């Protein structure tokens, strides 16, 4: 994972497409060629079952920086000839989260060409420079700048042209298709010093089409993050976006001396998904709209977090507030993020701790005392929210959504432990609980674990077996070795 930055795959069932490139060539001449970028497998797309059919064309294949180039060549082309190339594509959606604190000066440029103007991406053109100034003069924040550029390019009216539109033309006409918009997006990014490039590919959907697609990518902390201002994908690449080449190139090139036509013939394979290969998984539940993904994730990972807590309690000997409470507090942290969530949690705990002493000294009964403590917590949270609205700080103002009920339970539990064990032990247990919360947070954030339990919900049986063993385990807890070490000395 790169600093302050992570990518996550969306858990949409992987879809697969049968794709065929059909090229029709007609000529009377000596030598003809057709070149096209062919897809390659990478971390998010998988190309299999490749094959081609061509009448006596010789096929060669070269790996270039920008992609894999296939070339069909024939001497003495007579009459109509067909070339077809087919393969199976399966891919996953990619979603990135951009560190809101990332500054432009911290960006790694990778290659000078990613911030320099090119033929159709005229980032040093006056019109582009003026617009860039207008959009982003006052900020050096990457996320903010990209959002402004994205918003601007997105609001330009779309057209359907398949003609090449360069960045300046797109700006002047105030109208463009994917290729114009993507070049304008990249030009504006480069004008601001954000390394970026265009990417060529095809949006896969069942049917025959001739249109390819162009979108943009920005290089942030080691990742090429995708943007499609035409179809409104922000830092997101849908699973049916097949990548073919990087940079401003033409998908197909051919010799001038022939008549040429082409079509992409695409068919979505309905039933290929992880779900189809494995008898029972839960992947399909969220897409069927029966249950929100977040909820499903929480339900599935709660047993795992409880397993961790059980191991910490019974094997290591760490004390926590209740058994499930740390796992549940973790869920509530998710809406505000770990760091801020922990600060908030500690704030709540301090309010509880501070109110506890005077209220106990005045001899208040238990329940009224607890109500006052809760009101203290509520006032604290409202204050933060107010501060957030005043200062336009989204993180602060969203505190109100931080599940207050769960915090209240935590507050009550903490107050009780102060009573039972004294403030010193209560703080110690507090610290251990916090450590467990951070660990559980890691579990909830793990795409691997979420994916694993969605695919193999039967793994819950493994947790049950571990618990059956643990339930009969009579060994000393780790902390007990220290506690009883007196006996040997």
């Amino acid at each position: 994972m790169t600093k302050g930055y992570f990518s996550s795959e969306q858990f949409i069932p992987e879809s697969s497409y049968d794709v065929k490139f059909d090229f029709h060539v007609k000529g009377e001449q000596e030598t003809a060629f057709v070149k096209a970028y062919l897809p390659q497998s990478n971390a998010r797309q998988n190309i299999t079952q490749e094959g081609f059919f061509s009448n006596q064309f010789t096929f060669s294949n070269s790996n270039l920086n920008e992609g894999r180039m296939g070339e069909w060549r024939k001497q003495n082309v007579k009459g109509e000839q067909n070339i077809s190339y087919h393969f199976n594509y399966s891919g996953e959606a990619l979603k990135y989260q951009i560190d809101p604190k990332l500054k432009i000066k911290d960006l790694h440029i990778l290659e000078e060409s990613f911030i320099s103007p090119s033929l159709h991406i005229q980032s040093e053109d006056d019109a582009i420079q003026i617009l860039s100034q207008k959009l982003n003069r006052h900020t050096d924040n990457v996320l903010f700048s990209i959002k402004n550029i994205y918003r601007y390019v997105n609001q330009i009216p779309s057209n359907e042209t398949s003609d090449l539109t360069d960045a300046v033309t797109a700006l002047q006409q105030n109208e463009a298709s994917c290729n114009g918009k993507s070049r304008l997006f990249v030009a504006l990014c480069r004008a601001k010093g954000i390394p970026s490039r265009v990417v060529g590919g095809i949006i896969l959907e069942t049917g025959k089409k001739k249109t390819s697609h162009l979108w943009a990518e920005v290089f942030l902390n080691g990742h090429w993050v995708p943007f499609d201002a035409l179809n409104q994908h922000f830092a997101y690449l849908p699973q049916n976006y097949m990548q073919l080449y990087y940079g401003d190139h033409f998908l197909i090139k051919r010799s001038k001396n022939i008549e040429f036509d082409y079509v992409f013939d695409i068919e979505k394979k309905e039933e290929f998904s992880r779900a189809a290969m494995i008898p029972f998984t839960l992947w399909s539940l969220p897409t069927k709209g029966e249950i929100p993904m977040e909820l499903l994730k929480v339900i599935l990972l709660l047993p795992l977090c409880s397993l961790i807590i059980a191991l910490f309690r019974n094997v290591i000997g760490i004390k926590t507030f209740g058994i499930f409470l740390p796992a549940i507090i973790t869920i509530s942290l998710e809406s505000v993020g770990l760091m801020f969530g922990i600060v908030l949690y500690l704030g709540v705990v301090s309010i509880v701790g501070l109110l506890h002493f005077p209220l106990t000294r005045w001899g208040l009964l238990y329940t009224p005392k607890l109500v006052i403590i809760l009101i203290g917590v509520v006032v604290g949270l409202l204050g933060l929210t107010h501060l957030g609205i005043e200062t336009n700080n989204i993180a602060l103002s969203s505190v109100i959504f931080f599940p207050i009920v769960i915090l209240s339970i935590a507050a009550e539990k903490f107050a009780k432990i102060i009573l039972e064990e004294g403030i010193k032990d209560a703080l110690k247990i507090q610290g251990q609980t916090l450590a467990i919360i951070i660990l559980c947070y890691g579990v909830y954030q793990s795409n691997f674990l979420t994916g694993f339990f969605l695919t193999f919900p039967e793994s819950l049986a493994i947790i049950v077996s571990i618990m059956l063993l643990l339930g009969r385990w009579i060994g000393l807890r780790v902390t007990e070795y220290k506690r009883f070490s007196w006996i040997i000395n």
Partner: protein
Amino acid sequence: MFFSKKNRKLEQKICGINQRNVELVYVFNQRKDYKWADDKVNAKTILHQNNIACAETYGVIERIGDIYSVWKEVQKYDCLAIKPANGSGGGGIKIIRKNNDGKWMQGGKIIYEENIFQHFATIIMGIYSLGGRDRVLIERCIDPHPFFQEIYPIGVPDFRVILLKDIPIMSMLRVPTDRSDGKANLHQGGLGIGIDMSTGLLTTGFDGNNYYDFHPDSHLLIKGKEIPFWDELLELSIHTSRAFPLQYLGVDIVLDKHIGPMIMEVNVRPGLGIQIVNQQGLKETIQSHPLLQGILH
């Protein structure tokens, strides 16, 4: 580090929480019987039925509405021990005494009726019993045996005897210290003193940080002191164990100046710190006892 010789040795001697729960508490105590020990009012019912010496019960308050009538009832006594029936670790216990003017005093200060009533209400609301409702137990105060003056003059020391299948297997004496505020519980700063079961002689004391031959505050000698009424004390613990439907339990016994050994409390899950105090493991003790073979693994 966990495979060191020392740790292997510990594993052979010590019974940890996991083993205590799996092989002792769950095997020898039925969940449904916990209530006889956990609730002091219930425990005293059994003790009274079996004529086992314990502090006389002056009154029990079950509802807020009963406070006044029970309070009137107990005015004839000079000293009251007020306890939550389900308290733990000595929480919520108040000892109040009448002074020469007939006013109730707590720890040298006058305590007003409204404060006492509020304490009753607090107990009933369940503050000392993890939230559930509770009862107030009012009983006779203990007058500690002069023997304890020879160790530490303040507070009420008590003996803890652990019994398995009605056999006393380990015991200790708990004595208050300067920092325990009159309380004898180990985790509140009390001093635990080991006992040689066969002779009834005190061994060394342990306060959580060190072992002592002398009481750390009074500097009076502990080691080798003979416990008065030791045989009666053991006998009483065995009677108690037989009277309760529990086979693994910790019995707390006080030594009263006038009455001798008396049962204070019965515990279903007696703590494991007694092993540290005695520098002896429960596991080795149980495994080496001829009548307790095959219980611990």
